C-alpha cells in the first residue's frame, strides 16, 4: 500500500511539473492536483483493502478488471462530490479516470512482475537449482578410498560406506525445508570423516560446538559445501598438514558459524568453484531469512574465514519471508510486508498465513 501511495504521488508530481509554466508554480499545481488525487486514491485503496480477501482468490486478469472497475466508479463518486463543492470544467471526469487507469495499469504490471519473481513456485525452483552439488571429484575419490579399505580393514570400509550413504541421502533429498543445526553438524562430521580417510594426517578438524544451539533451524547443506571448499582449497593443494576449524555459537538471538581453513595462495583456476559455493549458500540464506542473515568471507594473514549469521529460530512458522512454507505475497500486501519485517527483528512472532 505504501508503494502505491508513493508511486501515485510521484506520478502526480511529475504531471504537475510538466503542466506548470515554471518551476515555482510546480508546488501549487501539485497541491491542487493532490487535493483531488488523495481522496480518490484513498477511496480506491479502502475499497480494495476491504475486498482484498476475495480479490486474492480471483485469477490475475479478472482481478485486474475488477480493480479497474472500482477505479472508474470511485472516480465518478469523487467527481460527484467535488462538483457539488465547486464547478469543474467539462471533460474533467474523463481526464481523472484516464490518469487513474494509467496509474492502475502501471502499478498492477509492477506488482504482477514482483509477485512472479517472489512466488512460491519460482522460489522453490530456484532453491532446487541452488541446492549445493557435491564435487564429482569427491565422490569418485571417496569410492576409491573405500575400495582401498575393503581388503585390509573391512569394518572401516563398512562405516565409510554408511557415511557415504547418509551424506548422499541428504544431498539427493528435497532440501527446501529448514533442518535443525545438529543434523547439519552430524552431516558435516560424516563428510569430514570421509575426507580424513583420503587425506589422513594432512587434515585436522577442530570442532568448537559446545555452545551451539542444536535446535536452531538452518537451511540444509548450509555448512557442508563450505567445508568441502575448505578442504579443497585449504588442505588438498598442499602436502603440509592443515587444520579446518568450525565454531558454532549463539549470541544475542543469532546463530553464528565461523569456518576457517589455511589460505594457500595458489594461482590458476582453483578459485572459481569457491565463489560458486559461497554465492549458492548466500542466496539460499537470503531466500530463507532475507536480510536477517548474512555471509561474509575474508582472508586474514594465513587463513580463509567464512562467517555466517542467521536469526535463531526453532519452529518453521517463525521463518519469515520468501520461504516456500509461507503463502506467497499478494499484490497490495507488499508495502505492509516490507514494513513489519523490520519490526520482527529481535521479537519473532508467527508469520502471517
Amino acid at each position, binding site marked *: 500500500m505504501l508503494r502505491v501511495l508513493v508511486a501515485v504521488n510521484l506520478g502526480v508530481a511529475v504531471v504537475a511539473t510538466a503542466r506548470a509554466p515554471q518551476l515555482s508554480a510546480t508546488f501549487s499545481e501539485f497541491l491542487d492536483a493532490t487535493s483531488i488525487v488523495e481522496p480518490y486514491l484513498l477511496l480506491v485503496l479502502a475499497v480494495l483493502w476491504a475486498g482484498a480477501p476475495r480479490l486474492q482468490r480471483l485469477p490475475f486478469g479478472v482481478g485486474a478488471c475488477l480493480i479497474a472497475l472500482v477505479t472508474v466508479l470511485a472516480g465518478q463518486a469523487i467527481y460527484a462530490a467535488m462538483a457539488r463543492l465547486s464547478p469543474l470544467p467539462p471533460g474533467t471526469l474523463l481526464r481523472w479516470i484516464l490518469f487513474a487507469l494509467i496509474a492502475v495499469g502501471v502499478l498492477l504490471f509492477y506488482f504482477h512482475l514482483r509477485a512472479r519473481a517472489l512466488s512460491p513456485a519460482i522460489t522453490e525452483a530456484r532453491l532446487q537449482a541452488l541446492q549445493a552439488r557435491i564435487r564429482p*571429484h569427491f565422490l*569418485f*575419490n571417496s569410492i576409491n578410498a573405500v575400495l582401498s579399505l575393503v581388503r*585390509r580393514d573391512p569394518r572401516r570400509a563398512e562405516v565409510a560406506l554408511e557415511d557415504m550413504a547418509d551424506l548422499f541421502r541428504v544431498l539427493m533429498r528435497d532440501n527446501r525445508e529448514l533442518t535443525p543445526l545438529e543434523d547439519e553438524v552430524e552431516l558435516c562430521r560424516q563428510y569430514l570423516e570421509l575426507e580424513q580417510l583420503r587425506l589422513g594426517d594432512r587434515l585436522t578438524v577442530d570442532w568448537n560446538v559446545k555452545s551451539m544451539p542444536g535446535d536452531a533451524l538452518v537451511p540444509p547443506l548450509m555448512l557442508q559445501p563450505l567445508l568441502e571448499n575448505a578442504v579443497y582449497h585449504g588442505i588438498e593443494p598442499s*602436502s603440509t598438514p592443515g587444520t579446518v576449524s568450525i565454531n558454532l555459537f549463539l549470541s544475542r538471538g543469532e546463530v553464528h558459524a565461523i569456518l576457517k581453513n589455511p589460505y594457500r595462495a595458489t594461482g590458476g583456476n582453483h578459485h572459481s568453484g569457491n565463489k560458486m559455493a559461497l554465492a549458492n549458500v548466500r542466496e539460499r540464506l537470503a531466500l530463507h531469512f532475507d536480510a536477517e542473515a548474512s555471509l561474509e568471507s575474508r582472508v586474514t594473514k594465513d587463513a580463509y574465514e567464512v562467517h555466517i549469521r542467521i536469526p535463531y529460530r526453532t519452529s518453521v512458522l517463525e521463518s519469515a519471508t520468501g520461504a516456500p512454507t509461507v503463502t506467497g505475497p499478494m499484490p497490495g500486501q507488499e508495502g505492509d510486508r516490507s514494513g513489519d519485517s523490520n519490526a520482527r527483528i529481535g521479537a519473532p512472532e508467527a508469520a502471517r498465513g
Partner: protein
Amino acid sequence: MAEAPLRVLVVDDETPARRRLRELLDDCASALPITIIGEAQHGREALDLLQSAPADLVLTDIHMPDMDGVELARHLLKLAHPPVVIFTTAFHEHAVQAFEVNAIDYLMKPIRMQRLLSALQKVPRLRPVTAEKLAQLPTTARRFLSVTERSRVVLVPLEDVVYLKAELKYITIRTAQREFLLEESLTKLETEFGSRFVRVHRNCLAAREHIRGFERRVNGDGDAHWEVLLAGVVETLPVSRRQQFVVRDMGRETAA
C-alpha cells in the same frame, strides 16, 4: 621367453589411492611380471626417485600438491630414458576431453583390474607423450623449469627465476645464485607464465616480482635508454625502445 618385469612407479597424494593401485598391480602380477619400484606423494618426489631408480611406467594422479601429474610428465621427458606415463584421475571433465583429443593414456579412478592390465600390456609398445601434446592439456602453469645437467634433471622453482634471456640456441635462466641453460622457446614461456614475467627486450623476460626499478642511462654516443634494476643480481637489463612502455606502466604501478 622370460621377459624383464615391468618397472612401475606409483604417484598419488592420497595414501588410500596408492594402496589401492598397489593392490591392483599385485592382482595383475599373475598375468604380467611387474616390479613396483616405489611410491611418491607428488611429482617432485617422483622425479627424485626416478633419478636413481629408473622405471618403464609411471602411473600418476593429475591433481597433486607441489607438482601435479602433467608437470611431472613434462619434466620426465628430460630424463635420458623417459618412462611412459599413464595418468589416473577421479574426475576432471575438461582434462579428460583434452586427454582424448591428444590420445594421451589415462585411467579413471576407481580403476578396474582389467583396464589396468590392458594398459600395462601395451606399455612396451608406447612412446612417451611429447611435450607439445602435454602443453595442450588445460593445466596450470608449471611451478618449476627443468634443465638437464650431467644427465640429471635439475628443477628450478619459478619464484627463484630473476630473468630469462634468449641467446643463440638456449635460454639462460638467471636465479640469484647462478645460471642454467634451458632448451625452450621464449615466446612459449611468455605465454605459459603470463603476468609473472614482463618482456623488457626482444630476447629477455624479467620476473615482475624481482624488478626493483628502472634507471636512465646515457651511453658514449649520447643515446639514452632505460635499464631494469633487479633484486638479487648485480647486472642490469636494457629495455629496448619498443618495450619502453613497460617502464611507464610499471612506474605507475609502483607509484599507485
